[in-house]
């Protein structure tokens, strides 16, 4: 007995898969809706194979002028390599570098853009009034005036690496954008 109401629970995906050599689900024979779906998918597949295409709008032969225009400079080769369909590396690489860099900066608690007030190992200088003054926390002050008593802080390597990582990731993402724009206008 055919339970037509149960069609909603039948596996449409498996029926579509059968067109590519998968096992034909039994519901194609027992459920009229699944049978109709299978027949429709076959009809569409046949139509795709035999469909006409629009006419080619112009002759695509190459000219010497066109070749000269597209002469490959090193810069162009580099930009073309970024973000093309063959490029499966740069996007995850850029996102990974940026994420690692941001994570590093967050872990070391360095606020973005804190170029002149460096803090490490605790809350940021701006957020901590008791250490906001170089006088009260001489170990945080930078040697702007070069006077005796002020200490030149050494930026921890993790901060440098994090900033470099963010910068590298950002640069790669920027290059991908430039390459995509170039392709879009070409």
């Amino acid at each position, binding site marked *: 007995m055919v339970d037509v109401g149960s069609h909603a629970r039948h596996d449409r995906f498996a029926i579509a898969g059968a067109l590519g050599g998968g096992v034909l689900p039994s519901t194609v024979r027992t459920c009229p809706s699944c049978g109709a779906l299978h027949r429709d998918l076959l009809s*569409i597949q046949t139509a795709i194979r*035999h469909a006409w*295409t*629009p006419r080619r709008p112009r002759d695509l032969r*190459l000219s010497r002028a066109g070749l000269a225009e597209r002469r490959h400079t090193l810069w162009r080769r580099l930009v073309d390599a970024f973000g093309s369909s063959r490029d499966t590396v740069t996007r995850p690489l850029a996102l990974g570098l940026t994420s690692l860099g941001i994570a590093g900066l967050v872990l070391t608690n360095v606020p973005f853009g804190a170029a002149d007030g460096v803090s490490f190992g605790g809350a940021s200088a701006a957020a901590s009034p008791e250490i906001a003054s170089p006088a009260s926390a001489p170990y945080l002050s930078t040697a702007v005036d070069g006077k005796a008593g002020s200490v030149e802080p050494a930026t921890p390597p993790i901060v440098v690496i994090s900033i470099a990582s963010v910068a590298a990731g950002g640069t790669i993402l920027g290059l991908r954008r430039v390459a995509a724009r170039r392709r879009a206008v070409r």
Partner: protein
Amino acid sequence: MEEDLRSTTVPDDPVQRRDLILIERSREGDLDAFNDLVSLYQDALFALVVRMVPDRDQAADAVQEAFFSAYRNLASFRGGSVKSWLNRICVNAAMDTQRARKRRPVQPYPELDDESWQPRAGDEVDPERIAVHAERSRVLAAAMAHITDDQRTAIVLYDVEGYDYSEIAEMTGVSLGTVKSRIHRGRLSLRDILSDRMELFRG
């Protein structure tokens, strides 16, 4: 040192032999020889790309870009079928165009009228059947433009070009399972889109 293709591979197929001779002359800087290849394959490659990129002008640009790329990279051709080599370059160019289109969406087939559709050689001559076939092709193309680029690419490569799942996975840089999923979901989406017009495709 440039490899002499004729000396290493002498295919029995006269088409392949002709193509290899043209490639070899192109490698020596003969642009006319390369343009002979363009003339031979531009229709087939345009038909492939225009199915993936539903805009005639952008598809033509992509194919021409692929030919420029092929000419610049003649040294990377390692023998075998020239058509397959050009096919792969065109598929890459089409995928690049699809990405660019995502940033600048355009209307699919904005200006196409009846004369813009190209029957295949040897197709029917009966005017009524021609009209039905043209209508079917137009409706199908519009539906294809509404599924995702990834689904469309996978379906075209599988159904029209005859690549198998693993070849498509390699060409598009995704897993076998992803290719199958794209094809199956694409087919179901097409059926949903075309549900009101299915009488055009039956029989």
